[in-house]
């Protein structure tokens, strides 16, 4: 079933030395994941227990400022909470009561820890247990940390999903759980593909509402759609479930490899696999071919942002003709990123963590044709003449699986196309 795929490179990046530097990081904290999670899980509310900075971050990271009343908010700690003048647990009870009275539609409440709540050691676990007892069975209260001292950007989603695993009911059924928050349209495509392959029963974490049953046990196998779900991977493994390792479903090759690993697990024949995937694979290749022309023979430099960097570098190298110069990731987990590193041709500097000033020096010296970086760095680099792609867009846009493969290539191609069509140079 892999006959159409190009062979893996003679030397991949799995054993390449990893540059680890410690200095200023230029990344979001895990609270940022709330921006997409609150839309994905439709009966959930995310209550950050934190400071004005947390509230300001969520508002600014939302950038576009979604001003419909969102399903997230911040319980802002005040002087009296810190000085111990007020019992923080009682204050939290009062705030949650106020919130649930205001939003009776909420079925799942996530108390989200922040840097300040971690530092003052506010016990959100105890709070979640107590509040669950108070509001059961109507509302389930869970907690996780999205703090910037513990989580980087997409790790917030990981922490959230990992928090849901221990409360999943137990099952002995042989089932597949697909883990990772995907845009609804992409999730529907994925379900259709797996169903057409004859794979099931299929569960998805996070489910759209609390009513969607997911159970886990020793006969469960799971696949990840996002490369940043290390803790969720560990939590599911603790419940006895087994991970199906595979490259991540970006691009035609990634999607095929991902599906193929699952198909193999479920003993699906090559004929069925080819019949189901042949048409979308052709479409994906065609779409990438259309969109990727400006990327061919160009170089790319990744600043660490979302942990999507390694699979995306693999996609750009193998399907779009690009050369990766540096691939920076906030964290690298061999169990998750290994299969993609195997396919990424040796050559680029792989780096984990960040000292942003030193990395900027390397970027300037490498002079890439395209730089993938966060919002804080994009305009300054553009002003220096570098074409940039905002990494955050990769998290907010449907980019997984076959039908989006062309869109994914187009996202990277757009800054280069734009640079080539603008006739009036910036000063």
């Amino acid at each position, binding site marked *: 079933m892999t006959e159409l795929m190009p062979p893996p490179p003679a030397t991949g990046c799995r054993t390449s030395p990893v540059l680890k530097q410690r200095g200023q990081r230029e990344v979001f904290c895990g609270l940022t994941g709330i921006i997409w999670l609150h839309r994905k899980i439709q009966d959930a509310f995310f209550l950050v227990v934190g400071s004005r*900075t947390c509230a*300001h971050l969520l508002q600014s990271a939302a950038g576009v400022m979604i*001003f419909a009343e969102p399903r997230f*908010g911040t319980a802002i700690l005040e002087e009296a909470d810190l000085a111990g003048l007020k019992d923080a647990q009682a*204050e939290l009870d009062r705030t949650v009561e106020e919130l649930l009275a205001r939003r009776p539609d909420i079925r799942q409440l996530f108390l989200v820890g922040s*840097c300040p709540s971690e530092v003052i050691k506010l016990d959100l676990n105890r709070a979640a247990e107590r509040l669950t007892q108070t509001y059961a069975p109507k509302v389930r209260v869970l907690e996780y940390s999205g*703090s910037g001292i513990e989580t980087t950007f997409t790790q917030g989603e990981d922490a959230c999903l990992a928090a849901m695993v221990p409360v999943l009911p137990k099952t002995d059924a042989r089932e597949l759980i697909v883990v990772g928050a995907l845009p609804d349209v992409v999730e529907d495509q994925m379900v259709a593909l797996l169903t057409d392959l004859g794979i099931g029963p299929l569960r998805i974490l996070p489910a759209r509402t609390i009513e969607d049953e997911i159970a886990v046990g020793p006969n469960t196998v799971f696949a990840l759609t996002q490369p940043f779900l290390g803790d969720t991977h560990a939590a599911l493994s603790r419940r006895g479930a087994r991970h199906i390792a595979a490259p991540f479903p970006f691009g035609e090759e990634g999607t095929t490899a991902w599906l193929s690993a699952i198909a193999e697990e479920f003993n699906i024949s090559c004929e069925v696999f080819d019949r189901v995937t042949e048409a979308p694979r052709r479409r994906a290749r065609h779409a990438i071919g259309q969109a990727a022309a400006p990327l061919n023979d160009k170089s790319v430099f990744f600043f660490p942002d979302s942990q999507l960097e390694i699979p995306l570098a693999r996609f750009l190298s193998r399907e779009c003709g690009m050369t990766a110069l540096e691939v920076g990731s906030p964290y690298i987990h061999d169990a998750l990123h290994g299969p993609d590193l195997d396919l990424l041709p040796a050559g680029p500097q792989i780096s984990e963590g960040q000292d942003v*000033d030193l990395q900027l020096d390397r970027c300037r010296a490498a002079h890439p044709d395209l730089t993938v970086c966060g*919002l*804080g760095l994009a305009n300054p680099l553009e002003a220096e003449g570098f074409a940039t792609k905002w990494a955050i867009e990769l998290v907010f846009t449907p980019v997984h699986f076959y039908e989006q493969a062309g869109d994914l290539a187009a996202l990277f191609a757009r800054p280069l196309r734009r640079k080539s069509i603008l006739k009036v140079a910036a000063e």
Partner: protein
Amino acid sequence: MKLTVWTYEGPPHVGAMRVATGMKKLHYVLHAPQGDTYADLLFTMIERRDHRPPVTYTTFQARDLGADTAGLFKQACQDAYDRFQPEAIIVGASCTAELIQDDPGGLAETMGLPIPVIPLELPSYQRKENFGADETFFQLVKHLAKPQAKTERVSCNIIGPTALGFRHRDDVAEITNLLFELGIEVNVTAPMGSTPSDIVQMGKAHFNVLLYPETGETAARYCEKEFDQPYTKTVPIGAGATQDFIAEIRALSGSTAPLDSQALRQTWWSRSVDSTYLTGKRVFIFGDGTHVKAAARIARDEMGFEVAGLGCYNREYARDIRTIAKEFGVEALITDDYLLVEKTIEALQPEMILGTQMERHIGKRLGIPCAVISAPVHVQDFPARYSPQMGFEGANVIFDTWIHPLVMGLEEHLLHMFREDFEFNDAAGPSHHGGHQPAGIGSNQLRVAATEEQSAVLSTGGDVAIWLAEAEKELKKIPFFVRGKARRNTETYATSQGLSEISVDTLYEAKAFYAR
């Protein structure tokens, strides 16, 4: 603990960043966890700055907490000095670092850097962004500025503009030009555009022009006391305020230079007959204290609006705003609770909102036009074109900005006359705005319907009279942009007359009662 959905102001260290980013050759070393680096994007994305803010974050992590976060801070401080070679450094803590009590100021002092190192105490759990900017600038002035011989020619400093300020770039240009015409030199403009060595020279000026009290008043007071520099009390937003400001400048400087006010078109634009339709439009005003004060005066005295309500989100200006509200005969709303602002606007049913980006969204939801007069800012508040709020050109810009969301005079009449027209009707919105859908499709009508439904629910509660079906039908014939007001006036009238039901007659009696 306070439940918050949206905030009008960021934390105080963001205020300090606004000062540092506006300046040159100043560096800010901020003891903060990695997530706090989000604040860079406020400047690089919203303001489209082409440089990173001059801020080094220590970005400590959980595993550092048991170890040496103080050492981390000192390392970051040294690295920042070596790499950026600033003229001065400010140091401080964000909300999380405040809790671990490393004392950045004390640590930096022990390092013996050969430049001024200025510690900032910004209590994150008590104060907010504007305080942070005001306090940071004050500390810079206090540490750097020295008494100096005054310049030979009469000169002034311009105080208050920062990075990420609402139209600060253009206000400074406009006022600098105005001062030039009055024969007054600008000694230093700060914080925005200045260096630490410029701050040292501030004492040379004869007086100070305080453009933004929110971010500059403490420094202005300090300079008044230490350097014998009086400062201006009028913020020149609006035609009247600009004239008062000029009078103040003349008194402070002795300038008698003639001033050409031909560029002030706003006064004639407002008197010209097309503007008649603006008369008595009920507006609700909300924003920071300074901009609200100015907007209230413009609304009443220069546009001929009726101020239906006003308020501000920065408590520091509560007293000023309450005084103004009293003068205007309305209740002042002093709050940073977005949902309370929304509720107030819903109850008042103004014909227009003069607010912030947040009120723009309230307006969208309630179907009320809105013009933005104040921070918090949005990428749209940094237009490419010259677009000040202050001085004569500022008055012109404000006139245009405020009338743009409204349905224009003759169009308003046409809507009254032909409200059944399938493409030219009240649900379609002002015809000079694109993107509206024809009636019967999409959200406009739904939105109007939703608003009405809400007010209908409101109207059934308590001692409010019940609408009879015929009267309800008649009410629907009134265009959407005055319907809310008609409903409210009629209900108030009915209550005042002790009526329990509203008929078509009641509707027209109320209309006659409130006629103007």
